């Protein structure tokens, strides 16, 4: 019982997949479906491959349509981006801000989601979820004012705080639907056996929530890594995150397409590698609460 819950993120109480395993009626539909699926995959993947190819081209080759696919690859763009433009610092900034904001949001968000789920605090939950609706710009002006008076603008702490604004509602949202689907019986029997409610949370609920916490953590990390607007205003020259660094890449002089694409690949590759290995978690997280109606 416990093994199945820990293994399968967010589907604690859900029954197994109810897929229809009946043969499809017509051969024509099968062919149509295969063609449609190949087309879909192409449309979603081709632009990313194009970006990847361009990042290995010299700018001369990028301008040459005949060298769209066949060209002599070069590492020059990556050398440029990672070496001369100090992108490794921005990589670290992005990682550090995403990591800290995710960790802190988990510490705040998991117990809160638990309380909101178990005590059905819908109004309190609404307060946290409001953060998803509010346009970020409306918070940025006051934040900028307060934090610049505290001489914090340009430091990591402001970036982490502002990214927690993205991470915390997401984590509360995902964890609430996780706790909603988790059977009460386990905690109750632990309490019958002499654990206090908080003891039961620490020793029974939390260990069983590893899947859910991983889901929430991975998604929150991704969203923080991808966030652009907060860092655009609140970061300094040395705390720039990758999206801001890429954006600034363009504003100087004419566009160095090869370098720009290499920079874009540097931002997206870590996230895509994470996505490839944690696909199941990301899907459950993104669709959390969607099927409750």
């Amino acid at each position: 019982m416990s093994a199945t819950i820990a293994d399968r993120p967010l589907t604690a109480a859900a029954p197994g997949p109810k897929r229809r395993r009946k043969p499809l009626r017509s051969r024509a539909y099968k062919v149509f479906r295969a063609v449609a699926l190949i087309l879909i995959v192409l449309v979603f993947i081709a632009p990313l491959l194009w970006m990847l190819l361009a990042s290995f081209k010299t700018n001369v080759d990028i301008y040459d349509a005949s060298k769209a696919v066949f060209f002599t690859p070069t590492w020059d763009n990556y050398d440029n981006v990672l070496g001369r433009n100090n992108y490794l610092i921005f990589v670290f900034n992005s990682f550090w801000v995403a990591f800290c904001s995710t960790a802190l949001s988990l510490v705040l968000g998991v117990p809160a989601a638990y309380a909101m789920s178990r005590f059905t605090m819908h109004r309190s939950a609404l307060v946290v979820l409001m953060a998803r609706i509010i346009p970020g710009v409306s918070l940025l002006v006051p934040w900028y004012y307060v934090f610049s008076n505290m001489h914090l603008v340009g430091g990591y702490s402001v970036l982490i705080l502002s990214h927690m604004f993205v991470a915390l509602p997401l984590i509360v949202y995902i964890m609430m639907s996780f706790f909603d689907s988790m059977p009460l019986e386990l905690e109750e029997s632990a309490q019958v056996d002499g654990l206090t409610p908080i003891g039961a949370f620490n020793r029974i609920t939390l260990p069983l929530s590893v899947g859910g916490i991983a889901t929430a953590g991975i998604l929150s990390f991704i969203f923080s890594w991808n966030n652009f607007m907060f860092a655009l205003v609140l970061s300094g020259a040395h705390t720039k995150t990758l999206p801001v660094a890429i954006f600034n890449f363009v504003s100087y002089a004419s566009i160095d397409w090869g370098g720009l694409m290499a920079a874009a690949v540097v931002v997206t590759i870590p996230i895509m590698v994470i996505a490839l290995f944690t696909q199941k978690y990301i899907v459950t997280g993104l669709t959390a609460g969607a099927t409750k109606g």
Partner: protein
Amino acid sequence: MAVLTPTRKSAWQAYSDWANAHRKWLFAAPAMIFVGVLIAFPLAWTLYLSLTDAHGSVRAASHFVGFRNYLQALGDMDRFWPATARTFAFTLSALAVEMVLGMCIALLLWRPFRGEKWVRVAILLPLVATPVAVGMMWRLIFDPNIGFANQLLNFFHLPSQPWLSSTETALPTLVFVDIWQWTPMVVLILLAGLTSLSEEPDEAARIDGANAWQRFIYVTLPLLMPTVIVAVLLRSIDALKTFDILYATKGKGGGSFNEVETLNVYAYGLSFDYNKYGLASAVLILFFLIIVACMFLLTRRRKGSNS
């Protein structure tokens, strides 16, 4: 526990009892206080700023001007109303295509097939890609001279398009980018809804002789409606607030003719490019009200469809 002395145990016990009795708020309060301080307070400040003529430096003195900023915004036919129209045009067109396309793809992926895993990975990648990088990527692809998009058109002997560089085609092009990036989100949500549906109603309709289209319209779709509305809700919140791809591809003010300037981009520009904090705050409050009104309409319909 057994080694604790009686007095320490009772103090610990008292604390533990208190904590357990109040665990509801003990657990929820830190997150709520954090959110409250970081959101409620700035929101109140924005509300205050919207009633003043704050501009220039954040530290400069400002004067109370009543509703002048709101009147200025609402009477502004050059920037505010076009931006509002663009926000809705962008959101509605992206949302409509994403929902229809998302439903089609979800239905295609519904039944298991070989290579299912690869298709799922493929549709997940756009979703997790950094929006700014996605913007830059499409900038290259849609470049009128060297872009892949025009190479493709020319290959089929179709005329080249200006894409992002023309005032007429820039916004539709960005709608396309939004569709490319976020249709997978709709697919995943609808697919989760489809797999959680029970088989019996569909089976019953099949036995009664309903064809695939009828079963979809009269059985699957009504059962799936709550999930569809969740997808619409989540996508419309994000689409209304789209910023990254617009700012990354067209820069300040949504391009030199403000051709892709939505309310969010407009408010950002007023705040941080022109430092007109008072007017920006008024625009933001209006924008916020618009979003809340949209959510209210959607959730009200949701309750209605449940009953």
